[in-house]
C-alpha cells in the first residue's frame, strides 16, 4: 500500500532545523578546525568561503529543488528525472549505507565518555596504577592520561590493522544503545540530519572545495529526502542560503574553540617535556635543583655531553627533543581530536564532570542528528518502493535496517576496529560523493535540461532562479568538481601505498604503517560499489528498453 498522501513537515522551520541538524555535525567540530590549522589558520577561510558561495550553495539549492519537486527519495527522484539516471539515487543510498554503518560508532564513543563522566575524578584525568601499586602504567606515563584512556581503556586498540582482537564489550554495548536511540528517533518522525566531511587532497583550495561539498552533506540523498516532504511551494531558495551559512558559521566558531585547546595542549606538552628532560639531567648528574632552566637546557645538554660522554650515553636515548612547533604541528584530527584533545581540556577545568557531561551530550546530539539524516536517506527511497511497503510495516523495515547496520558496525568495536573505522571515514564517502555530485549536476543541466528545471522552480517558488545559480550549475561547479576529481585521482595514484596511524603501546605514540593488501582491497571495494551503480543502472535500463522495443516491433509485425 503506497501512501496516498506523503507526510510533510509541520512547518517550514522544522525542515530548516532538520537540514541544519543534518549539516551541522561532528565534521564541524573535528574536520574543519584541523584543515584550518593545516593550511595556515585564518587564511583557509578565504578558499573556504569562496567555495561555499561558488560550489556549496548552488549544489545545496539544486538538491533541495529536486527533492521538493519530485517529492520522492533519491532513487525515485532520479529515476523520474531520467530513467537512465536512476543509478545516481542508488549510488547515494549505497554511500549512505556505508556512512550509517560507521558513523554511529562515534555516537557509541560519545556515550561511553558521557557515562564515564559521572565519577568523582574523571577517569582520563589520572593514570591508573600498575599492578604492584608502585608506579603508573608505563603506556600511560609515556603518552598521557587522556591518550591512554582513549587508546587503551576505550578502544583497547591493537598495534596494527592485521591484529584483530575480540569485540570490546563496553563499545559493543554503547553501539547497541546508539542504534536503539536512532531507531527510537526515526520511529517518531520524518526528521533526521547528518553531516559528514572528508577530504583527501592536501592543497588548500582542494580541501576547501571538498570540505564544503561534504560539510553540507551533498550527494547522500538526505537533502533530497528531507525536501521531498516539503510543500510544493516552500521557499527553499532562502532556506538553502540560511542553512549553508549557519553550517559555515558553526564550523568557524568551532575552530576558534578548537584552536585555543590546541594551543593549550601543545604548551602543556611542551612544558612537561622540558620538565622531564630537566629532571632527568639533574638526577643523573646530581646537579643542584634549579641549575637547569628551560632557556639554558640546550647549553647544559651539550656541556654535559662533552664533559661526561659515557654517563651521558646511558641516558641519551631518553632525551626527547622538546619543540613547541612540533607539538603545534601534530594536529590531531578526526576522532582523536574530539575525544582526546577536548577531554584533555575538560580535565583541567573546574567542575570538570559538569563540562564533560555537557560536552559529550552536545557531541551526541550532533552525532544523532547526523545519523537521522543518513538513515532518512536510506529509509525514504526504500519506503517509496511499493513492493517493500506492501510487505513490511514501517517499524519492521526501519528495525531491520538498524539491526543490519548495528551488526556490521560491531566489527568496528573490535581491537583493530578503529583502523577499519578510519578506512571507512577516509574512503567510503569521499571520492564516491564527488562522483555522485558531478553526475547530479550534469544530469540536471544537460540531460534533464536547465530550462525545464528553471520552469519547475518557477512553479514552486514563483520566480526563476537568478542567473548566478544558472552559471554556477552549468559551468562553474562541474568544472570545479572535475578539477577536484582529477587532483584526487592523481594524488591517490602518485601517493603510493596508503598509510595509516597505528598506536604503539610501547612508545606511547602513533606510528605510520602501510595498509595490507586486503585492506586496500576493501578501500577499492568501497569506492567502486557506490560509483558502479550509475553506469550499471544506465546499462540495465538501456537493455530493458531495447527488449521492450524488440517486443513491440514483434507484436506489430505479428499483428500485420
Amino acid at each position, binding site marked *: 500500500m503506497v501512501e496516498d498522501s506523503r507526510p510533510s513537515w509541520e512547518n517550514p522551520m522544522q525542515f530548516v532545523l532538520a537540514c541544519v541538524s543534518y549539516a551541522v555535525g561532528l565534521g564541524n567540530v573535528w574536520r574543519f578546525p584541523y584543515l584550518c590549522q593545516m593550511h595556515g589558520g585564518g587564511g583557509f577561510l578565504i578558499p573556504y568561503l569562496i567555495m561555499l558561495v561558488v560550489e556549496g550553495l548552488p549544489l545545496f539549492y539544486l538538491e533541495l529543488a529536486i527533492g521538493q519537486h519530485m517529492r520522492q527519495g533519491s532513487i525515485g527522484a532520479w529515476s523520474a528525472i531520467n530513467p537512465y539516471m536512476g543509478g545516481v539515487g542508488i549510488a547515494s543510498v549505497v554511500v549512505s549505507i556505508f556512512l550509517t554503518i560507521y558513523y554511529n560508532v562515534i555516537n557509541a564513543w560519545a*556515550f*561511553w565518555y*558521557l*557515562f*564515564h563522566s*559521572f*565519577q*568523582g*575524578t574523571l577517569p582520563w584525568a*589520572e593514570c*591508573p*596504577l600498575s599492578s*604492584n*601499586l*608502585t*608506579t*603508573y602504567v608505563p603506556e600511560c606515563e609515556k603518552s598521557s592520561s587522556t591518550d591512554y584512556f582513549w587508546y587503551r581503556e576505550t578502544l583497547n586498540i591493537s598495534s596494527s590493522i592485521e591484529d584483530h582482537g575480540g569485540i570490546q564489550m*563496553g563499545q559493543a*554495548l*554503547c553501539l547497541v*544503545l546508539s542504534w*536503539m*536511540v536512532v*531507531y*527510537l528517533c526515526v*520511529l*517518531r518522525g520524518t526528521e533526521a540530519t547528518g553531516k559528514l566531511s572528508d577530504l583527501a587532497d592536501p592543497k588548500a583550495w582542494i580541501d576547501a572545495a571538498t570540505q564544503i561539498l561534504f560539510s553540507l552533506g551533498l550527494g547522500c540523498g538526505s537533502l533530497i529526502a528531507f525536501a521531498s516532504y516539503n510543500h510544493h511551494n516552500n521557499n527553499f531558495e532562502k532556506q538553502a542560503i540560511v542553512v549553508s551559512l549557519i553550517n559555515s558559521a558553526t564550523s568557524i566558531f568551532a575552530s576558534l574553540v578548537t584552536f585555543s585547546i590546541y594551543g593549550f595542549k601543545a604548551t602543556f606538552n611542551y612544558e612537561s617535556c622540558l620538565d622531564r628532560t630537566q629532571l632527568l639531567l*639533574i*638526577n643523573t648528574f*646530581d*646537579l*643542584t*635543583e*634549579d641549575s637547569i632552566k628551560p632557556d639554558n637546557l640546550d647549553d647544559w645538554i651539550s656541556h654535559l655531553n662533552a664533559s661526561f660522554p659515557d654517563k651521558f650515553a646511558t641516558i641519551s636515548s631518553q632525551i626527547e627533543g622538546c619543540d613547541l612547533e612540533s607539538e603545534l604541528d601534530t594536529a590531531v584530527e578526526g576522532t582523536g581530536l574530539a575525544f582526546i584533545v577536548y577531554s584533555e581540556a575538560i580535565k583541567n577545568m573546574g567542575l570538570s564532570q559538569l563540562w564533560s557531561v555537557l560536552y559529550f551530550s552536545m557531541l551526541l546530539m550532533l552525532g544523532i542528528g547526523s545519523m537521522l539524516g543518513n538513515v532518512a536517506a536510506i529509509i525514504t527511497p526504500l519506503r517509496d518502493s511499493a513492493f517493500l511497503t506492501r510487505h513490511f510495516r514501517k*517499524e519492521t523495515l526501519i528495525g531491520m535496517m538498524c539491526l543490519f547496520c548495528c551488526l556490521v558496525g560491531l566489527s568496528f568495536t573490535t581491537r583493530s576496529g578503529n583502523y577499519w573505522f578510519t578506512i571507512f571515514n577516509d574512503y567510503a564517502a569521499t571520492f564516491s560523493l564527488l562522483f555522485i555530485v558531478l553526475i547530479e549536476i550534469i544530469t540536471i543541466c544537460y540531460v534533464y535540461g536547465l530550462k525545464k528545471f528553471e520552469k519547475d522552480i518557477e512553479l514552486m517558488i514563483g520566480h526563476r532562479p537568478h542567473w548566478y545559480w544558472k552559471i554556477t550549475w552549468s559551468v562553474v561547479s562541474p568544472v570545479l568538481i572535475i578539477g577536484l576529481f582529477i587532483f584526487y585521482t592523481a594524488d591517490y595514484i602518485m601517493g603510493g601505498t596508503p598509510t595509516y596511524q597505528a598506536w604503539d603501546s610501547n612508545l606511547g605514540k602513533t606510528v605510520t604503517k602501510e595498509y595490507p593488501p586486503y585492506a586496500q582491497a576493501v578501500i577499492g571495494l568501497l569506492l567502486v560499489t557506490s560509483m558502479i551503480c550509475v553506469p550499471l543502472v544506465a546499462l540495465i535500463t538501456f537493455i530493458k528498453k531495447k527488449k521492450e522495443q524488440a517486443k513491440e516491433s514483434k507484436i506489430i509485425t505479428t499483428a500485420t
Partner: protein
Amino acid sequence: MLARVLLALSLVPALALALCQPDGQDAYKVRLSIKTALGANAYEWNESEQFLFRATLAFAMRKYTGQETFNVSSVIVCDETPRVSFWFVVTNPNDTATLIPKNAVEEAIRLSRNRINSAFLLSDKTLQFLGIPPTLAPPSQPSLPVWLIVFGVVMGIVTTGILALIISGFIQRKKKDIEDEDEEEKQEGIMENGISCETLEGKEGVNNGAYSHDEDRLTQL
C-alpha cells in the same frame, strides 16, 4: 694506651666511610627535591638537616625492630651532592662493623615513610629512596562500575520508549481496523434477505430489483 685509643678513634670514621659505599650491597641512595616541593619556602640543606635525617632514620629503625639501641651514630651518610642526594647505610648497634641488611632497612622506611616525609615537609615524590618505590594511593574502585549503572538507566529509558511507540502504533492500527469493522457492522444492522429491517420500517419501501425491468422493456436495437 692513649695512642691506641687515638688510633682506634681515628679508624672509626675511616671504618665508617669504608662501610658506606655508593652502590653498596646494603646502601640506599636518597634524593631530595626541596626546591621543587617548597618553592620559595625551601630551606637550605646543611649539617643540621643531615643530622635530622639520620635521627629520623634511627627512629624508623627503632620503630621497626623494637630495639631502642639504634642511635644517630648508627646511620652513616656518604657521597653528598649539590643535588641534595646521598647514600646511607645503617650499622648494627650491637656490632658496628656489620650493616643491617637492605630488606630490613626497606621495611623500616616503608613503615615510617609518612613520618620521615613530614619531618622534612616533603612527599614520596620529593623525598625519594631509590629502590623503594612509593606506595601510591589506589583509586577508589566502586563495586560496580558507575558507567554501567548510567548505561543501564539510559538503556531502560530508550527500550521503554521504543516499546511504547511500537505498542501505541499497534494499538492505533487495531483501533482503526476495529473502527472500520464497526462502521461496516453498523451498516448491516439487522438483515433479512439482504434488506435491512430499518429501511423496511420507512415509508418509502424498497425497490425490489427482481421485479423492475423497466429498462429492459424495450430491447435495444
